[in-house]
């Protein structure tokens, strides 16, 4: 199998098709446009349907209809569009419909910018819409990983009857990297006896619904959902760990930032600073246990994000006050440079003066 040089957005789209996705509903927004563009070209070739909706709101509701009708279905967008989809995402969770939602994050708030960001971490990991819920969130840090995580996302969506988010940043969506795209992957097609396909009287009528007007019934529904979320938390957490065992300083970073941090911890090691990294691959469920375990031996943590500090809340919850948790972040579409992260590592290790942010260039 030859490696292909592909843009992240296109690789995600092709991965979805190879995972059996045959329905895509979307709306243009930068920096994710190559996903719907690619889908518009490929879906007719594989007998699927690409439909450009009149809005993000309509797109997510078309996803709701297609998912309720039993199809593997996907939509993609970026921050402002994901905000519009939140109503529909809440309904998808309430009605327990499987689908994959890709968010290629850009700078915010508001119209923000079209440059890479991780500012939608809270929105993705805290539910994002109205009501009590969580959604599994995958955070690829390379184009290759975006392929495997997109395919996993479809299986996880079907397994738990839940939307699943693939949370990339503009860098992941726009950069080109060599990827392995398996010709065929094992698709875990599950039976969907609950789907609305037309009622022939031989089974209970399908009712796709999130309304439970009786509070005691709605509470039971919520308890059932919370039990499902607990099951996902115990079974689906994924992360990467590098040089953590003897690390004095553990950097926590995901997505594009994890790649930058990886270079920085290696340089720090070369300087004699014992730095390591924990890289969440699932942002929810969050890798709290490995971070808690690292807190037993590490002296401090440094969270690096392309935001003003969102994931740091989860890191602090895991560390539970036992060790200092430091932060370095860039916002607005600015991407941290390796030297910036290295400088922060040096400060954390007491090897640089925090009053002097302009340490010598590396």
């Amino acid at each position: 199998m030859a490696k292909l040089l592909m843009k992240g957005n296109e690789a995600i789209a092709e991965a979805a098709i190879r995972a059996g996705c045959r329905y895509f509903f979307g709306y243009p927004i930068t920096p994710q446009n190559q996903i719907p563009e690619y889908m518009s070209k490929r879906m007719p070739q594989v007998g699927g349907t690409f439909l450009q909706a009149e809005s993000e709101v309509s797109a997510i509701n078309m996803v709701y209809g297609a998912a309720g009708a039993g199809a593997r279905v996907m939509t993609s967008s970026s921050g402002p569009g994901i905000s519009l989809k939140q109503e529909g995402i809440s309904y998808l969770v309430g009605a327990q419909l499987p689908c994959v939602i890709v968010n290629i994050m850009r700078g915010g708030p508001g119209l923000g910018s079209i440059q890479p960001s991780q500012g939608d971490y809270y929105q993705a990991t805290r539910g994002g819409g109205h009501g009590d819920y969580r959604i599994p969130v995958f955070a690829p840090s390379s184009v290759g990983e975006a392929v495997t995580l997109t395919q996993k996302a479809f299986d996880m969506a079907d397994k738990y009857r839940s939307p699943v988010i693939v949370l990339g940043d503009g860098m992941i969506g726009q950069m080109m990297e060599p990827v392995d795209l398996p010709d065929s992957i094992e698709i875990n097609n599950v039976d969907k006896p609950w789907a609305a396909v037309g009622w022939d009287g031989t089974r209970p009528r399908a009712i796709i619904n999130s309304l439970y007007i009786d509070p005691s019934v709605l509470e039971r529904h919520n308890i059932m959902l919370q039990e499902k979320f607990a099951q996902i938390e115990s079974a689906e957490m994924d992360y990467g760990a590098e040089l953590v065992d003897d690390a004095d300083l553990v950097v926590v970073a995901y997505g594009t930032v994890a790649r930058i941090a990886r270079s920085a911890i290696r340089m720090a090691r070369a300087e004699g600073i014992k730095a390591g990294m924990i890289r969440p691959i699932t942002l929810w469920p969050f890798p709290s246990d490995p971070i808690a375990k690292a807190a037993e031996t590490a002296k401090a943590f440094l969270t690096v994000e392309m935001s003003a500090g969102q994931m740091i809340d989860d890191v602090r919850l895991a560390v539970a006050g036992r060790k200092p948790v430091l932060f370095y972040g860039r916002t607005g579409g600015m991407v941290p440079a390796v030297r910036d992260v290295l400088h922060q590592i040096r400060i954390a290790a007491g090897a640089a003066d925090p009053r002097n942010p302009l340490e010598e260039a590396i």
Partner: protein
Amino acid sequence: MAVVFQKPKSLTDDILTYCPGCTHGIIHRLVAEAIDDLGVQAKTIGVAPVGCAVFAYNFFAVDMMQAAHGRAPAVATGIKRVHPDNVVFTYQGDGDLASIGMAEIMHAAGRGEKITTIFVNNAIYGMTGGQMAPTTLIGQVTTTSPYGRKEELCGKPIRMSELIAQMDGSAYVARASVHDPKHVLDAKKAIRKAFETQLSGAGFSMVELLSTCPTNWGMTPSESLKWVASDMIPYYPLGVYKDSAKGAA
């Protein structure tokens, strides 16, 4: 003993949740009769709105989905694209369709989406307690137009059938009423025609039905029926606005 009257197969045994004197029940029956008459119960999928008809998923004996407020045509689009051979319909009120769901209904019609929309226009938000709708008549008192709807503040009521008929993608659009037996029979024909249009693959079909809301209009059921004839029909003329099989009316 001969059966002379029975409930349509496409209605469940659930007790309707509509207020006394509301004509949603008649419209439910007409939709179910059309599904029965065409023999499509086993392949019909309905989409319930947000509004008084939100519980429609309990009443129609077909597979059902409940949609977010105004989004039923988008949900129906998703269903129809997955199951093009099924019969897919939305059942929506005037707040749902003509206000918050204006984009979804216009674009479903614009795409010529092969679905059928049953649009119940009672000129008011019923479920939420009688607020002004885009279809509320000038001068009509509601809980959010306590001095009567004023044109200078809110504009004139929106006539959806006329709008949808203008869309190239719509194939059959009619406005009917259920305020007396003659009009009920006309409405039945229109609903059946709308479903037949979907089955023929001609495009989008919609029947707008003028309906009563005695509770929020502050009238008796019989006064409500008279008000449909005296006040609603003059502003919302009945008839077939588009029939692609015959050309525009």
